[in-house]
């Protein structure tokens, strides 16, 4: 049995036959001897580190109802910015440490499990669906500890993979177990879609001020609310029936209650020479989107065994992840866009059972907008299935040659096969018709394989000479990374309703292959003096297969120092001042590179033209650059750690300056060169920021304690240089409607850009014929990257109860809302309610023919019919009304847990605990209208600030029971 209490060292007492156990907990020696897992899995005493490394509470991760471990980290670590995309229960997590280190879309930290990197990239499919990332393959209950290595120095031993920091995870090996233990954890989570819409409910469906006059009208105009004032009279609706012309305020009635079952059974055991942990987990998550679900099964095995001087450790994690119909925000099969923009007098549930035309078998359309697919059709006729079988793990052998000298070798591999198939159903309204005698539609099936093998060795020595100590390691790593995929897609079918390759008319097979290797040698040297001054230096050299052999070797160094002034000045420190440490460090680390980018290749099209003439040519439109090198991040960091009053107050602050140079940019070139771009090492970028973690224990008594902690980070980026002379580099544009993100010299990363209204010199909006126009010059609205990210975490302990509450926030960033663009142009938004007699826009009319001068301008008095007026938003597309401050404060989580062990004090049950948890409790502050500001479904940094009508966010209610035998 284990006893622990805040600020005291944990004690283990073997439960025998005694009926009473008396334990005296000793106050912990604070962080003095705390051990942290650092790069390469090397454990070090926290006090010796010259950089910031934050350990995450594994219990808080395990109790969070989120299926993705990454998303459970939200708001918990200073400097770690977590965004959970609205992409279904099987989706990815978006983690960013200290801003974004490159102009590219993927700036996620490296995930290292038990010392070996795993693939954490977000896998996506057709229509941009999110199949989940690497962290989905981990069962939170298996996590022993988690450390976030934030800066370049902390991550320096990972060389080319270190630019975004590292999430280090150790999984359980049953350490400390005696005998056999069984632990059963069962939970249920209920998800509800959150509706933030606040529409006008005055005017109903219709066009040009008239309600639908026929079923045809109703099936044509259901995406717009330009009808009459709703009066409750019967009106034709898209289901072919008449319904009262009245508001339907349950806007998200289409979405169902999500239901997730989580079950884990874990066995652990051990003796003085070793231990093991074995667990089986089963998660079944039914999404709020009908017919969409995510199931995963995870088996995890960890073992640690000593044979004298030899230690064997191994962890193997096997997962089967099944995604069924993950939601998409692409217009064609995007369900949310139709759900949100179904007229306020109509209810989608009327067509719940009639999405298929009974005569033709085609989609039963409910609007004239072909791309607003009937959502029931999209939910039940489209399929997208993907199964990923994944195994990762490693085997480590360590031999202690002498008490101060060891060698170890390790083999680690991450391997998965993903099978996927999906269709575009025959008869979808937006599809082109097939040639006579054939049926339109698409089907695709594919298999992709990923394998990364890492072989590494390490020789370590640790010796003291008087007041001096040396800790040194030397090692090497060989990485072999392989990606393969085959798929075949077919378009149009001979027989209807059979989605197979054989039945497809046009078959397009594709094949992908990519293999790269990186070999590395590295060393670390740590010197200590008197247990209060520590100097660390590391160096790593990487050799890349992807680069020109003449220049494929890059060195990544780091230096750091830690000064424990509370120890050095021990006699001068007041007694309430327990701990004080100053740290400073500098490192240079790199970015990854892609294979096959240095030469010209030719490729052939899958199908010969007209079945007879093979055709092809130069592959891609990028001019290869044989002298590319990986980007480099140079980061300096200082930090201060303080502990007062026996840990009642502790503070950890850090400041950093992070420069990225030699960014690889795809520089656009004239298409008259017959190519579109070339890759060049040109970009420069800077991120600066501070992070702070303040932990307080205001109350600490026998029965009650309250721990509270604030974490906060501020990061500001600046684009220093783009390609020769370029001021703006466009990274993305919304696939539909409006929205554009660029990087601009002198501005923070990720500028949201677009067109303002055309204004006079006073800033008044110019109108002509009562209508506004737009300024053809684009302006910058601000960055999509938050400057402020933080959380306030509270834990209350009262006897057997524990209450956890988390509030978190992000601020200082912008987003553009496609939803509100559609809400305004189609008459849903509240501002469209005031339309009687036409809209008289608050603008001015230019009289003298010089739009720049305002003296002559007179107020606009011309009314414009509502539909014409608001449709103008989509004709001329002003961005300004749809740019929002994306800041928010949310009450993220409330968890109540109770340890009921004493009620079941039987011989078989060693522990019983329950916990109830709510995620997304309340939005305390937001500025985006009609939506959750976190309603972003894409994890790429390029699309960060573009809200594109994805699925709504959810509130989750979880209940978990934990039994130990």
């Amino acid at each position, binding site marked *: 049995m284990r006893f622990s209490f805040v600020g005291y060292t944990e004690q283990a007492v073997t439960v025998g036959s005694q009926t009473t156990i008396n334990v005296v907990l000793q106050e912990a020696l604070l962080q003095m001897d705390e051990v942290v897992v650092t790069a390469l899995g090397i454990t070090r005493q926290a006090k010796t580190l010259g950089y910031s490394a934050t350990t995450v509470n594994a219990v808080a991760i395990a109790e969070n109802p989120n299926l993705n471990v990454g998303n459970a980290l939200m708001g918990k670590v200073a400097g770690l910015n977590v965004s959970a995309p609205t992409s279904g229960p099987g989706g990815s997590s978006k983690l960013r440490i200290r801003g974004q280190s490159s102009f590219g879309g993927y700036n996620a930290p490296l995930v290292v499990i038990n010392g070996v990197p795993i693939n954490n990239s977000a896998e996506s499919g057709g229509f941009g669906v999110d199949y989940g990332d690497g962290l989905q393959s981990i069962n939170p209950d298996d996590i022993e500890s988690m450390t976030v290595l934030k800066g370049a120095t902390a991550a320096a031993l990972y060389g080319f993979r270190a630019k975004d920091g590292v999430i280090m995870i150790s999984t359980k090996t049953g350490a400390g177990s005696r005998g056999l233990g069984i632990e059963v954890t069962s939970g249920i989570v209920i998800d509800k879609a959150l509706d933030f819409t606040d529409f006008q409910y005055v005017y109903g469906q219709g066009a040009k001020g008239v309600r639908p006059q026929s079923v045809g009208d109703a099936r044509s105009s259901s995406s717009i609310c330009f009808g009459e004032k709703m009066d409750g009279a019967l009106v034709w609706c898209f289901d072919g029936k008449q319904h009262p012309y009245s508001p339907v305020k349950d806007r998200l009635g289409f979405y169902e209650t999500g239901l997730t079952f989580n079950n884990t059974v874990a066995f652990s055991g051990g003796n003085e020479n070793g231990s093991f942990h074995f667990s089986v987990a089963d998660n079944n998550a039914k999404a709020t989107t009908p017919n969409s679900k995510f199931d995963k099964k995870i088996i995890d095995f960890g073992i640690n065994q000593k044979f004298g001087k030899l230690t064997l450790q191994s962890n193997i994690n096997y997962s089967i992840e099944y995604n069924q119909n993950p939601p998409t925000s692409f217009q064609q099969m995007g369900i949310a866009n139709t759900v949100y923009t179904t007229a306020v007098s109509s209810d989608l549930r009327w067509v719940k059972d009639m999405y298929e035309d009974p005569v033709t078998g085609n989609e039963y359309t409910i609007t004239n907008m072909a791309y607003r697919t009937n959502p029931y059709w999209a939910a039940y006729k489209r399929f997208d299935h993907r199964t990923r079988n994944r195994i990762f793990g490693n085997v480590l052998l360590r031999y202690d040659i002498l008490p101060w000298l060891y060698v170890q070798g390790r083999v680690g591999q991450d391997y998965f096969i993903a099978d996927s198939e999906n269709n575009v159903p025959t008869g979808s309204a937006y599809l082109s018709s097939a040639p006579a005698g054939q049926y339109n539609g698409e089907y695709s099936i594919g298999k992709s394989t990923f394998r990364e093998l890492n072989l*590494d060795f390490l020789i370590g020595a640790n010796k003291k000479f008087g007041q001096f100590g040396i800790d040194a390691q030397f090692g090497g790593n060989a990485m072999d990374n392989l990606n393969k995929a085959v798929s075949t897609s077919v378009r149009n079918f001979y027989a209807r309703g059979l989605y197979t390759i054989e039945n497809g008319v046009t078959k397009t097979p594709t094949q992908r292959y990519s293999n790269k290797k990186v070999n590395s040698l590295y060393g670390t040297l740590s010197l200590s003096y008197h247990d209060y001054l520590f100097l660390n230096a590391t160096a790593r050299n990487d050799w890349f297969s992807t680069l020109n052999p003449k220049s494929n070797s890059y060195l990544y160094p780091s230096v750091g120092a830690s000064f424990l002034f509370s120890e050095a000045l021990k006699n001068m420190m007041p007694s309430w001042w327990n701990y004080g440490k100053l740290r400073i460090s500098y490192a240079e680390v790199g970015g990854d590179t892609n294979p096959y980018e240095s030469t010209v290749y030719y490729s052939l099209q899958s199908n010969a033209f007209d079945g007879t003439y093979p055709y092809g040519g130069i592959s891609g439109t990028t001019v290869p650059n044989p002298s590319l090198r990986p980007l480099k991040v140079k980061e300096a960091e200082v930090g201060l750690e303080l502990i007062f009053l026996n840990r009642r107050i502790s503070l950890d602050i850090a400041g950093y300056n992070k420069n990225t140079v030699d960014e690889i940019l795809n520089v656009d070139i004239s*298409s008259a060169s017959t190519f579109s771009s070339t890759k060049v090492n040109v970009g420069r970028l800077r991120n600066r920021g501070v992070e702070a973690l303040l932990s307080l224990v205001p109350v600490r008594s026998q029965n009650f304690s309250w721990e509270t902690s604030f974490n906060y980070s501020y990061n500001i980026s600046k684009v220093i240089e783009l390609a020769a002379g370029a001021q703006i580099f466009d990274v993305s544009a919304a696939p539909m409607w409006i929205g554009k993100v660029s990087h601009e010299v002198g501005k923070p990363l990720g500028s949201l850009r677009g067109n303002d209204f055309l204004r006079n010199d006073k800033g008044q909006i110019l109108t002509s014929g009562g209508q506004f126009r737009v300024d053809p010059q684009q302006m910058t609205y601000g960055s999509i990257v938050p400057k402020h990210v933080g959380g306030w975490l509270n834990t209350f302990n009262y006897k057997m109860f524990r209450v956890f509450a988390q509030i978190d926030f992000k601020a200082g960033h912008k987003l553009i809302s496609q939803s509100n663009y559609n809400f305004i142009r189609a008459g849903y938004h509240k501002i469209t309610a005031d339309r009687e007699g036409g809209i008289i826009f608050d603008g001015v009319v230019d009289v003298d023919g010089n739009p720049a001068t305002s003296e002559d301008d007179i107020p606009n008095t011309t009314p414009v019919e509502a539909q014409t007026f608001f449709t103008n938003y989509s004709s001329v597309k002003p961005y300004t009304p749809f740019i929002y401050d994306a800041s928010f404060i949310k009450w993220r989580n409330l968890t109540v847990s109770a340890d009921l062990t004493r009620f079941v004090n039987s011989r078989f049950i060693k522990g019983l605990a329950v916990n109830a948890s709510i995620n997304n409790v309340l939005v305390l502050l937001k500025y985006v209208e009609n939506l959750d500001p976190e309603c972003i479904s894409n994890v790429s940094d390029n699309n960060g600030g573009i809200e594109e009508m994805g699925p709504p966010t959810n509130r989750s209610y979880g209940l978990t029971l934990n039994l130990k035998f």
Partner: protein
Amino acid sequence: MKSKYVNIINTKYVVASLIAILISVASCDKDFEELNKNPLLLTTMDPVYELVTAEATFTDQHHYFAQIIQQCALIIGGQEAGGNYNIRNDNQMQSMWNTSYNALRPLFDIMKTLEGNTERSNLYNMARILKVWNMMRLVDTYGNVPYSQAGLGLEGIFNPVYDDMEEIYADLATELKEATDALDATKKIETGDMYFKGDIAKWKKFGNSLLLRLGMRYSKSKPATAESIVKIATDPARGGVITTNSENVVIPYNGTQNNPNSAAFLSGTKHNWHASRPLVDFLYTNKDPRMKYIICRYSDPESATGGTIDTIGANQIGCPHGYDESTIMQDPLYPGEFKSFVYKYSQFNRQRCVRIESWHFIVTAAQTQLLMAEARSRNWITTGTAKDYYENGVKQALQLPDMFATTREGASPITDGEVAAYLARPNIAFSDATALKQINEQYWLACFLSWHEAWCNFRRSGYPQLNRINYSKEDAKVHASTDGFIRRLCYTIREYSVNKENVNKAATAIGGDELTTRIFWDTVLP
């Protein structure tokens, strides 16, 4: 027993695995160069495959050309608006630029690979002819464009200078003549060629027909130049021009590679695309036998089949130009809408001319014979009669395979008798007095779905005589111009961001990057 087991692990496995790891790291980058070659791609390729890529390039998009020459009409605004409103829509204006230069990538690459190669000189010269085809269309659309430095991306010229349009044309004429003359039936026949399986006689006719077209472009600005080029192009000793449909240059679209025009007319927005009133009226007035195969009205235009199809000429209502969704009801012949925004105007026949696998015509006998008719009536050539060329041109147009049939490659259902009847009709029967008007009206019809060429010939010849669109919110320059037509498309926005200096120079050189700036051969006649 146990300690022995440990010893075995000690000595063998630990040492062996560590040594193995050390060796693998120490051996370092030996295999790296080999590893960094993509095993799925080629480092060299038979250049004939690149020729087919260029042959398969489609640039006749309907957003501008079809609407400027008033064969196709779009009422609604938004992303697809362009030629219907006489406005600048950058997305639609740039497509020709991008696709044409894309087509030039394989062509320049072939020419680089095969320069000086005597064995495959035919392929080299076929690539040259296609280079001319693409460059001509670029000049015809934009004016000054990159030429001398175009296609040199791999050589490090990322942002090429723009060349003078007239100088480009002069060089294209020389290239075309030389390339056509250099085609040699005794050299390797390129059977992988999609147009003619390498048939030299047909390629010569293609080259000469293109040269005839190029020469005729000068008819307004420099008639003497036109005459001299036409004489060279039609010199029978050089192989002659295309005379019958079996010699047409065609992109053989099919169920796999779909016709992009058709795809648009069969897409989710298929109900938006209407047949223009001038086209419908011209066909109807002259009892054109083509009409029932290309114009129709659907009972349910949004459905895949269109519902029941009405092809009766008298029932057709072409869509007028110059209206949008808020004014279309002011059209005196406004037929109403099926439902909001789905109008009852005539459309194109999805079972015939815009089938998904419809062929696309690059250069046809009809076009070429009609150009011959004009050249003859101008006395630039002396053989044959203008009437014969004209009548053959019309006959070839009416009997064009694929377009009027319900099946791919199907023969035209129009009989010789119908052709004769048509040629006897009052406005159609050839008359020397109205030769140019008649020839070029027929050229307009013969270019149905090959809209870019119809637009070029309209600018050159002034026929057919169309009314200006006169849309209330049209581009200010177009509005202020005397003719009211788009004479040119604007340079791409992308050029202004990546190749700013050169495009700005070009814009100044041509007299402004406007829809109204004229291509050098499109002079304003007094």
